[in-house]
């Protein structure tokens, strides 16, 4: 009611307090929300908890690897010991509460000291995370069949990683008992709802230093996301240093020494992500969004003519020139390199927002169109480009390469190789509904991932995480089989207006809500309940040394960011 009036008051108010706009009641004074203690984010599929607790002692504690082991486990054990006992980059000490009045052993809910957690991996490790990786795990802490013991069990190393993250979140500092590391008896059976839970990072509009990418990867792992979609290049710049074609980044990056990713940088990111169970999927968007490719790869882009057939000033180009044979040779070699550099079989080919303006005016293309009898149907030409591109890349990768593309390719009725994943990004703000698009894409039988409701780069004043949290990927009209084709989703952070200064606080904890939507059960959708856990999770991430913004308005964490 009276939206206008409301908005007006809102703008004119020193204090922001329309309580109906937040999923909780704003109190008269003090913090708006009291966080939970020792709750897990994203919420596990099944958890039974108890009031009895264990106390962890940093000097006594150890992870005991009782099953299979490999480098991923060894690294994780070290990492999680630090996360639990010495969070934060600065090695901040744990909270110091006044010591308990009586020895903790006399506390009625005290169960025992927990000096070991067993890591029980049932199957040999896989080396690389993949689209098919298994991520389910069990945690038993002092259950009837596992009394006085704590065990993480999984059939896959990826499940063990997810379980260790959960375990680290179960440990809390208790203001009630004064114990720094305390954990309740509990049993958890957990697995993801969707297999593809991604985050897209754009390093073309602003360059993101390696350190930022690694922090982002840590945060993905701590929210059980498993895909880093690396939007590496775009019109603005080309920071990927290609081994075969070094000229592209030499001329197409913002700065060819400081603002590029070398082969070694890329390896480092991939390895960092692998150890955390995260796939790295690079995107080399073509045929459009390629302005930055042109400087270092002459004749790749379409020279642009005006309506009178006059060549526009020499620096105006359109999308990749689809009728030049040499371009497919280049693309074949280039994507061959990409396939060797990035171990995941999936590569994101882009394909969005192709402008036909320069194509329509280029004499060579016009002749080509006429020769093929395509009239003015330039989608045919785009289809031709993608047919050639997929043929070339399939050939050089011995049919190993798999594709993700933006939805336009499907919208333009371009036929895609089977096994291609279509990423749905339009809708909502364009007045279209992503539900219709999901129904359409899955009807064609393609697997799909959803990004439309999760464009986190669009910022707004006030609380906005609820809309990300409540976006439901399976609300569209479609058969069971269609719904099974929705393999997940992605939060995206396009970087026109954000760089490494703020990309982390702008992304987190807003992306946490996407993570829970994609991991937890569909029924976990009560924002009032989520707010309390999200509040704890935000303070947890802050304590671990990550610059994450406040999530629920007026509040505080025990340890604030103090640089």
């Amino acid at each position, binding site marked *: 009611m009276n939206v206008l009036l409301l908005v007006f008051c809102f703008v*004119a108010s*020193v*204090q*922001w307090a329309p309580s109906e706009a937040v999923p909780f009641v704003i109190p*008269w*004074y*003090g913090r708006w929300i009291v966080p939970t203690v020792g709750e897990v984010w994203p919420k596990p599929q099944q958890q039974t908890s108890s009031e009895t607790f264990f106390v962890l002692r940093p000097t006594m504690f150890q992870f005991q690897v009782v099953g299979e082991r490999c480098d991923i486990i060894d690294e994780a054990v070290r990492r999680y010991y630090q996360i639990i006992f010495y969070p934060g980059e600065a090695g901040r000490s744990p909270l110091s509460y006044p010591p308990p009045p009586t020895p903790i052993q006399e506390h009625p809910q005290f169960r025992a000291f927990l000096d070991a957690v067993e890591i029980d991996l049932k199957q040999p490790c896989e080396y690389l995370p993949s689209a098919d990786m298994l991520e389910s795990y069990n945690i038993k802490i002092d259950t009837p069949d596992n009394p006085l013991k704590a065990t993480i069990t999984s059939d896959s190393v990826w499940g063990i990683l997810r379980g260790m993250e959960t375990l680290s979140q179960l440990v809390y500092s208790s203001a009630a008992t004064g114990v720094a590391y305390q954990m309740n008896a509990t049993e958890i059976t957990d697995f993801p709802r969707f297999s593809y839970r991604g985050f897209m990072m754009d390093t073309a*509009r*602003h*360059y993101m*230093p390696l350190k930022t990418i690694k922090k982002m990867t840590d945060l993905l792992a701590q929210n059980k996301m498993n895909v880093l979609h690396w939007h590496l290049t*775009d*019109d*603005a*710049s*080309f920071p990927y240093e290609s081994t075969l074609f070094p000229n592209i980044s030499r001329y197409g990056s913002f*700065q060819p020494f*400081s*603002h590029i990713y070398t082969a070694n940088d890329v390896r480092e990111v991939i390895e960092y992500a692998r150890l955390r169970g995260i796939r790295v999927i690079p995107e080399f968007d073509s045929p459009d969004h390629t*302005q930055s490719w*042109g*400087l270092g790869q002459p004749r790749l882009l379409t020279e642009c003519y005006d309506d009178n057939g006059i060549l526009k000033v020499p*620096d105006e180009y359109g999308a990749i020139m689809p009728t030049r044979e040499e371009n497919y040779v280049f693309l074949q070699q280039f994507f061959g390199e990409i396939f060797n550099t990035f171990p995941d079989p999936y590569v994101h080919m882009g394909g969005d*927002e192709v*402008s*036909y*303006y320069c194509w329509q005016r280029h004499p060579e293309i016009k002749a080509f169109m006429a020769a093929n009898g395509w009239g003015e149907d330039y989608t045919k030409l785009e289809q031709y480009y993608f047919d050639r591109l997929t043929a070339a890349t399939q050939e050089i990768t011995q049919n190993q390469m798999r594709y993700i593309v*933006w939805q336009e390719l499907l919208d333009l009725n371009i036929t895609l190789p089977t096994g291609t994943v279509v990423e749905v*990004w339009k809708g909502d703000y364009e007045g279209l509904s992503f539900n219709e698009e999901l129904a359409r894409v899955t009807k064609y039988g393609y697997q799909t991932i959803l*990004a439309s409701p999760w*464009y986190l*780069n*669009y910022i*707004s*004043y*006030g*609380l906005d995480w609820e809309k990300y949290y409540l976006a439901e990927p399976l609300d569209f009209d479609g058969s069971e089989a269609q719904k099974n084709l929705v393999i997940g989703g992605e939060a*995206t952070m*396009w970087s*026109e*207006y*954000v*760089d*490494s*200064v*703020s990309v982390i*606080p702008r992304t987190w904890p807003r992306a946490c809500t996407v993570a829970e939507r994609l991991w937890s059960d569909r029924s976990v959708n009560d924002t009032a309940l989520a707010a309390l856990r999200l509040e704890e999770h935000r303070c947890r991430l*802050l304590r671990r040394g990550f*610059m994450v*913004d*406040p999530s629920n*308005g*007026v*509040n*505080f964490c025990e*340890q*604030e*960011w*103090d*640089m």
Partner: protein
Amino acid sequence: MTMKSISLLFLLLNISLGWAEPDIQKANLRFPFDLPKGNGAWIRPTVGQIWPKPQLEQPTDNFMVLRPNDFHFQITGHTCDILEEAIHRYYNLIFFPPRGSGTSKRFQKLSNKYSMTWEKNENFRGYLDTVILNVMQPCEKLPSLNMDEHYEIKIDTTDRPREGIILGQSVWGILRGLESFSQLVYSSQNGIAFQINSTMIMDFPRFPHRGLLLDSSRHFLPLPVIKDNLDLMAQNKLNVFHWHITDDPAFPYESRKFPSLSQLGSFNPYSHVYSPSDVEDVIQYARMRGIRVIPEFDTPGHTQSWGPGSPGLLTPCYKKDGTKDNFFGPINPVPAKNYKFLREFFAEIFQVFPDAYVHLGGDEVDFSCWASNPEIKSFMKQQGWEQDFARLEQFYMQRLINVTQDVTKGEMRYLVWQEVIDNNVVLPTNTVIHVWKDGNNFHDELARVTKFGYRTVLSSPWYLNYINYGVDWDRYYLAEPLSFNGTESQKRLVIGGEACMWGEFIDAVSVTSITWPRASAVAERLWSSASTNDPRLAAPRLEEHRCRLLRRGFNVNPINGVSYCDIEW
């Protein structure tokens, strides 16, 4: 895609290309500059330009080179701790910015390679090894509303060839001059790490009150964050830190006389409070940078957090049936003991904060609780005010001013939010009215306030806490405080403005990056001449300034869309 689409949009907006069908949604994004075609950053930064823009500048293409090992500042006039500290600070800012030392090293290496090639450059005028600092009057200890901030800089001018001098009547002017000087020094693409062009600058602020409000009540801001913002203020020539230290959610100010206020009213009485020494630390840090600290203790509303530590201060609210409902309203204006408390409290504030001005708040007083309270009802009746609670507010403010004048021997000066005057409270004529309502439609209020003869400070168009997608600094930049209808003498009553960063949705993590460099736009509006108002010309300078602040170690956001700095965060 999103703003992949935006990059397409530039192309769309670009009529020369005229591609595809325009997209209404995205066409809402507006840019204060033309978007480039092809690849690369949207804005090319200037080199060695000053932000905010000086009043008068005569730059040339001649240049001098600074050598870190030979360079020094020479004090020829008066001196004091403020100047000594500033010399140390600016030497480091120029030669060893915290994160930028990498650049210097890189350029130094290059310069060895090109060994002195600049000496053959026809514009090379020599090495600038000495910059004279001449403070003509003895230093003042404290910055004040009346401080003199004029300064002049001469680098290799005709009357002083190959010399550098910064002069000013007051030490505050020299501080501003040092900041300008530090911004004139740049790393050139020719491999010279520290280069400065010959120039002459005469500069002074357009308005004397140029502030930033930070809110440490909605979220606690640790000292390092406050200090970072003070540095950034000095580097944008802002001179008032308006410290909105308390509000409904929390009372983090640790009072010596009334420690229970923060003991019971802060988020945490040990880790989330400002101790007396913290406050002193902030004041000194600000003083060294020529920045006044004006605390705000907002009353009678916005005081929920005062309640737990000060029983009886707030008005108990009553339900319709006449029973107490356990909520409290604004300060109870009836009991005499509340004024006794306020008198002592503000006496302490006046001692702790050296500036003559204290912000008394007075905004958004909710009358409904007052109206429900039987004690207040009978008081109103007794006064014959019926339901006119504005008179009760007036009564409160009047008493508050009386007791604080009394206890400070008439020395305390006030800032109040505009409601106080909107509700016709009579204020001492030297009170400053803070106009904050109505966003960009603040003109009527400025006209009204100044017609009453009060001085005024403007914040309405500069609520930086309201964030927007896209480039938004130009709207702050273009807000003109003197565009209202009024006489010359009315306009003279506008003493400046403040950018506000309310803390509901922001804490130490992002307060700096969200505030800056958006507040830089406000800083230029308040310092530079009214005619400095072309965002197209400002954008390249702002771009340079953003990278400069980043290089100096501050986490300030990108401001003009797609871009890069030599040294990233």
